[in-house]
């Protein structure tokens, strides 16, 4: 699997991924044609607001969506067609090749198992080692994520740990089998500010040391600025802008990204209104024709409502799906169109 051919290809390729939830009343287009890829050792932030499809995309990559979800497109992880995996292969794919850190450690961990039981189950299942060896590896992992007095805490139940330690334990579980791809779904959103920065720095350091590709879902531009190499901005189920984090945050190419930055409260003068984006995101059951951001966009023109704009590449490594990229790039930063 680690042959030269595969190593040259991206670790993850997602092409035209669509996820629909079909019920009798309506069809919800949670993801409608997301395309992005990730190199080994790279950190990509999926940035978007609630309902933008970022968490559904992440779950699709690990095949965690319920059976009633209609998944289309192509997902290739480390040379494997992730959407075609079945049975044993799928089991060792989950946890072995790809691992996930969830937002709420208290609900993601089983309250009746100790941290050690969570860890040793993973290690023994995937690595086939004995009980004692698995426990030794578990303690090593808890040390790796900087949980103090790991020998004692390994026998703690989730409720006996603070929020920050629980999230560290969850990271340890995700890392236990050396995944090539780590998926993190808002892993620091539920944490307090002083704890959030500790966990972010830990994740950044571990990612650099272990060199795994990481996809980090967040709604927080600040989190993206702290941890990402590249960002992919999602809106109404599509990636509408992508590029290196510094470039995108300094000079956004899509009006939505520009608006999101201007409406994020950050050192604005207290006597001025914030440049909010008017309106609210579209109803995923009834997506507008053409660009889904057009109804809220001050730059929208009639052509925007004809069809969804094709990707344009304003600079090397940058992509935006907007007809007016040139106009957006010319705007001063932080000013909403």
């Amino acid at each position: 699997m680690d042959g030269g051919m595969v190593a040259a290809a991206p670790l993850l390729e997602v092409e035209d991924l669509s996820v629909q939830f079909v019920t009798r009343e309506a069809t919800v287009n949670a993801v409608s044609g997301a395309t992005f890829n990730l190199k080994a050792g790279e950190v990509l932030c999926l940035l978007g607001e609630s309902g933008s499809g970022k968490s559904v995309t992440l779950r699709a990559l690990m095949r965690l969506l319920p059976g009633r979800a209609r998944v289309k497109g192509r997902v290739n992880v480390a040379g494997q067609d992730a959407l075609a995996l079945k049975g044993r292969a799928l089991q060792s794919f989950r946890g072995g090749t790809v691992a996930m850190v969830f937002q709420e450690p208290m609900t993601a961990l089983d309250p009746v198992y100790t941290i050690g039981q969570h860890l040793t189950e993973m290690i023994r299942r995937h690595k086939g080692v004995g009980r004692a060896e698995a426990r030794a590896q578990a303690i090593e992992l808890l040390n790796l994520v900087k949980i103090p007095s790991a020998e004692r805490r390994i026998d703690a139940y989730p409720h006996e740990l603070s929020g920050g330690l629980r999230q560290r334990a969850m990271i340890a579980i995700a890392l236990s089998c050396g995944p090539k791809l780590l998926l993190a779904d808002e892993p620091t959103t539920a944490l307090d500010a002083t704890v959030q920065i500790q966990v972010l720095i830990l994740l950044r350091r571990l990612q650099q040391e272990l060199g795994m590709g990481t996809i980090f879902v967040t709604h927080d531009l600040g989190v993206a600025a702290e941890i990402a190499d590249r960002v992919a901005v999602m809106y109404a189920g599509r990636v509408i802008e992508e590029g290196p984090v510094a470039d995108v945050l300094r000079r956004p190419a899509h009006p939505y990204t520009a608006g999101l930055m201007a409406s994020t409260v950050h050192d604005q003068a207290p006597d001025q209104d914030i440049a909010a984006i008017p309106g609210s995101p579209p109803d995923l059951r009834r997506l507008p024709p053409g660009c889904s951001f057009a109804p809220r966009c001050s730059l929208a023109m009639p052509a925007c409502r004809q069809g969804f704009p094709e990707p344009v590449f304003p600079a090397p490594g940058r992509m935006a799906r907007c007809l007016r990229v040139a106009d957006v790039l010319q705007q001063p930063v932080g000013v909403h169109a």
Partner: protein
Amino acid sequence: MSATVQAKPYVDGRDRGGAAQPMLIAKELQRHFKVKGAGKGAVVRAVDGVSFTLFKGETLGVVGESGCGKSTLARVLLHLVLPDSGDLVFDGDTVGETRGISVADLRRQVQMVFQDSYSSLNPRMPVQDSVAFGPMVNGKSKAESRRIAQDILVKVGLRPDLFGPRYPHELSGGQKQRVNIARALAVGPRMVILDEAVSALDKSVEAQVLNLLRELKRTLNLTYLFISHDLNVVRYISDRVLVMYLGQVVELGPAADVFAKARHPYTQALLGSRLSMDSSKRIESPPIVGDPPSPINPPSGCRFRTRCPHAEAVCEAEMPTLGQWEDRSSHVAACHMTNAQSGHSLAGTA
């Protein structure tokens, strides 16, 4: 939007003390909760001796991490949770005393907006009835209440003909929070407590609601107590800031001063944990390590000493006090380093 609405000179008949008299004075408020299964007599010291003054027309931001008691404090201020001890003085009248103001009268003048916009609305009641409910309970006729509801819905940016007949599940998060703000304003309060009122909203919607709150404050002459864990939002909206840690006030002062030169090491750590939006200015090492300790058995002396980089023997032995403050420009912190006589080696430097 804001330029067209000019604040008129406004005289409220209920304003008894005039502009100089504080809207609200909290004196040594305390509320502990008994906990089972954590040892005999174990209590959570949710609010433990909190004193502050809220002046008329200002926005006081309350910040702190989860479990520091900020929401309990908000509930104590409205007597939704009764304080164990301490006094609350609203515009010169002590709350709940025979010669003071009754709790019912207090709640007519002080309203609250909660974080969860969905669970704080009745799912079986259309928006217009929900908003009209407050005035109706307070003795207005049905027609009059309806009219008030329509006016208020316009003020919060929702067209009454379009949104009035809708049910909460037919609204987006931002629209629901606008309805909650309308509900709070329908009884004509002078003060509004906003308990994480924008925290659950997406950034683009949060900005809309913050703009709305500022406009309403100007046009309706309101006083806000704004509780949030988001320091950027608090800095933006507040005139003064109160920082809480494990049930106590650790710092209080004008927002500009607190954010420019925090005096308490905890406030400094909080500010240092703010994420920048610039990937070239990443934070290399965390300002403090560890999680906040449990409020059940808080550390002796200064409660922050277990995480403080400057902790010394005196911090364990003695609880620092907030110090004297006179007016709205005072900037005080409960830290031994601010007190030259405390015996701390860095005393007088903060």
